[in-house]
């Protein structure tokens, strides 16, 4: 079905299953460093050989315990070497790996385990194990639960539960012939992973990705922007999401760079400084957060520094605007930019751990073009990638020096993009998935004649660049019959340093309104600087001066919008949005429906 698609520089066909690709890379890389992790303040190396041997040992043990080809195996845990070793172990054994978000409540974990009919379940620690204990009677498909961090479990014993170390130990004593056979048996059309989409709507669906899908993507991702074995990345987004999985697993075993795991989910900033990755990737929320940090740092600087920053930023901004509109940058501007870069931005980048960054990606949710430009202006080459899990993550990215304002770049080589009559973006590529697991109806809606119906609306411009306007089902039709794309307006609002998130409302209403979530750090700073007394975040959201501040920001955005698109009223959400409350996804995308429900009274009060 799937042909051999990728070739290396010498024209040799590349492997089309992950175990085969893994084997090739390990043969080349041997004892060089594959990944690093930090323990008690020290970074430790893990070599390719060690990675490969451990993964195969896990595969051995799993096969011995009865894992059949195509069986699902679930993993829950924060990013760490064990996670990817287990992931590759499952794949080498011919199993299908299913990642689950650590932030999920046990009910959600139960849903995924049962829906995937997982036979084995790898859990990170006591906390995650407790989730399984809460639903064990209802998860009959499971044969064994394996814990890799057994702290606090010395007293605990259960015939269903096994320590990871023991699993590895027993696996080591076994003959690897069974794994060799399983690895050789795999075909590109076999299932590799199930990725449960976090889903801004309804129950999660399990997207089925094949070995052919992911190995093609591992190769294709490099076509627009170089990645090679000298690169370093920092792994901190959830590994069960395709974005992180692509960089920490699939592209990693293809290109042989170094993956560095953050110590804890909340040490990203420190670890970023220490590692200083050469290829960066994060979700928009994180890029926005970093940018807020830069702004705060600058307002606290001495006036000389402030002045220098302001001047350099103005130059950088002008240059970035020209570049992003594909206009020629005059020589004098280029010279000025370089002076500004050396005097100001170089040091700034060093502080943040961005000094070695060759390319940085933003993905998993739309980022505002203004935010991209702001990064381009300070000399951080941030580009947007567009895609969805169902297309193995990436459909379009920009090339480094060809970032076009307001677009997500051009389709990856080998990827076809078509715009349907109603504006929906359709994708056909070797990365397009084979369907949702046990969900024929959803599969038929998403896949027609080999085209993936993305649910996004957009246009291809004359240069072949794709511009996304909105999610199809998010489009608002006002009472006056006007079609409005809320995302466009929301992104403009989010570009304000004081606004962290915005949700535009107006479907079947007379005019548009918005719910606004404050940017805690910047608004607190504003309050401090302007002597506005407050005790808690909640107080800030009620403060009249803060409301005025947001009104100004909204007014600024309104000026750039057509009359019907103007935000007539807004309300500040009196609390922060949390994944635990179901208001945002694990990658911090706002779930519209939940927010509409939770703040219905605020919304009604605006009409």
């Amino acid at each position, binding site marked *: 079905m799937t042909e051999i698609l990728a070739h290396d520089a010498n024209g040799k066909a590349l492997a089309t299953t992950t175990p085969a690709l893994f084997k090739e890379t390990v043969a080349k890389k041997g004892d060089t460093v594959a990944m690093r992790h930090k323990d008690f303040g020290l970074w430790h190396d893990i070599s390719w050989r060690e990675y490969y041997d451990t993964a195969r040992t896990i595969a051995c043990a799993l096969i011995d315990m009865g894992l059949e080809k195509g069986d699902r195996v679930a993993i829950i845990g924060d990013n760490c070497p064990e996670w990817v070793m287990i992931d590759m172990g499952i794949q080498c054994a011919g199993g299908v790996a299913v990642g689950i978000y650590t932030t999920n409540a046990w009910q959600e974990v139960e849903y995924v385990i049962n829906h995937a009919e997982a036979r084995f379940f790898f859990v990170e*620690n006591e906390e995650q194990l407790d989730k399984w204990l809460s639903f064990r009677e209802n998860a009959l498909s499971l044969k064994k639960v394996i814990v890799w961090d057994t702290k606090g479990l010395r007293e605990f014993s259960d015939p269903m539960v096994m320590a990871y170390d023991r699993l590895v130990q027993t696996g080591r004593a076994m003959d690897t012939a069974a794994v060799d056979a399983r690895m050789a048996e795999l075909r590109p059309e076999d299932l590799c992973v199930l990725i449960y989409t976090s889903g801004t709507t309804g129950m999660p669906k399990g997207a089925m990705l094949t070995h052919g899908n992911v190995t093609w993507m591992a190769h294709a991702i490099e076509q627009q922007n170089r990645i090679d074995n000298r690169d370093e990345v920092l792994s901190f987004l959830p590994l069960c999401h395709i974005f992180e999985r692509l960089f920490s697993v699939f592209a990693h075993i293809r290109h042989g760079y170094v993956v560095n795991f953050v110590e804890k989910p909340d040490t990203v900033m420190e670890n970023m400084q220490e590692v200083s990755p050469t290829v960066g990737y994060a979700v928009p929320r994180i890029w926005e957060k970093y940018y807020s940090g830069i702004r705060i740092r600058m307002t606290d600087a001495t006036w000389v520094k402030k002045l220098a920053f302001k001047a350099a930023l103005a130059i950088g901004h002008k240059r970035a605007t020209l570049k992003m509109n594909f206009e020629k940058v005059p020589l004098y501007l280029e010279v000025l930019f370089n002076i500004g870069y050396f005097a100001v931005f170089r040091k700034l980048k060093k502080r943040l751990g961005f000094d070695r960054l060759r390319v940085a990606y933003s993905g998993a949710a739309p980022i505002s073009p203004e935010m991209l430009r702001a990064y381009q202006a300070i000399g951080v080459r941030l580009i947007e990638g567009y895609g969805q899990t169902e297309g193995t993550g990436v459909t379009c990215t920009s090339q480094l020096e060809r970032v076009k304002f307001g677009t997500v770049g051009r389709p990856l080589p080998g990827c076809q993009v078509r715009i349907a009559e109603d504006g929906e973006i359709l994708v056909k590529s070797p990365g397009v998935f084979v369907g949702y697991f046990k969900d024929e109806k959803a599969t038929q809606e998403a896949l027609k004649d080999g085209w993936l119906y993305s649910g996004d609306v957009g246009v291809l411009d004359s240069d072949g660049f794709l511009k996304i306007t909105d999610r199809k089902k998010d489009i608002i039709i006002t009472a006056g019959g006007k079609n409005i794309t809320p995302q466009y307006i929301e992104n403009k609002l989010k570009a304000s340093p004081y606004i962290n998130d915005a949700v535009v409302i107006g479907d079947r209403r007379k005019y548009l309104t918005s719910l606004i979530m404050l940017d805690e750090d910047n608004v607190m700073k504003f309050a*401090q600087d302007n002597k506005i*007394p407050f005790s*808690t*975040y909640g107080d800030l959201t009620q403060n009249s001066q803060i409301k005025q501040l947001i009104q100004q920001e909204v007014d600024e955005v309104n000026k750039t919008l057509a009359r019907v698109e103007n935000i007539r009223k807004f309300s500040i959400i009196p*609390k922060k949005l949390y994944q635990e409350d179901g208001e945002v996804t694990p990658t911090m995308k706002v779930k519209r429906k939940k927010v509409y429900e939770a703040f219905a009274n605020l919304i009604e009060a605006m009409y």
Partner: protein
Amino acid sequence: MLEVKNIETYYDLIYAVRGVSLSIEEGSITAILGNNGAGKSTILKTIMGLIDDQPDKGSIEFDGKRIDGKDTEAIVRMGISYVPEGREVFEELTVRENLLMGAYTRKNRKEVAGDFDRVYRYFPVLQQRQNQWAGTLSGGEQQMLAIGRAMMSRPRLLFLDEPSLGLSPILVQEIFKIITAIHAEGVTVLLVEQNARMALKISHTAMILENGRFVLKGPSAELMEDENVKEFYMGVRSQDSAKGYQRWKRKKVWR
């Protein structure tokens, strides 16, 4: 009565209080709760003028008059008194001398004599030991002495920094009973505590401080019912592990 607006305090390069505002109404008991290092004591010390050149930013008003930047002595004269964490009695002075030190800012001898009686009424044990060195007192007695010493300046507003520290449960109850009694006589109280249960019980308003910022405030009765406060400050588990015990903690989320 006391209005603290947007204060920021540094210990050298350490940014300990990151923008704190609070207002205390006359006749109330307010509690500030928080873990070690949250900045609770720093707030009290900043208000008392005990940290040189601080607050770095913000203003503090007592009865409508600015007191930030004033000497501690002047602040005490205006009617604020402070019981430091760990009592800090003068160990080589007698109990009586310690109390006299508390009356340092006072001139009227007759009144001071009356105040001795008042303190001895609260803490009869101090009278029994009035000629003993303070260093020879037990921890509980030292705490009583420290509170008594603070009362000797006839404060209208009393700051108490962890009065329950290192005391047995019965003594803690005793001390809190006395704090309530002092309050009943018309003294406004600001209490910094780690013993959340006791502090919430006797206070009207409570605030939770974390990393130099307030994350939660409200009537104490409401905070006592808050899931996060229960779990992280009172040791009540909101969810139990199916295996009967658990080592991990739920992540804290302040809404």
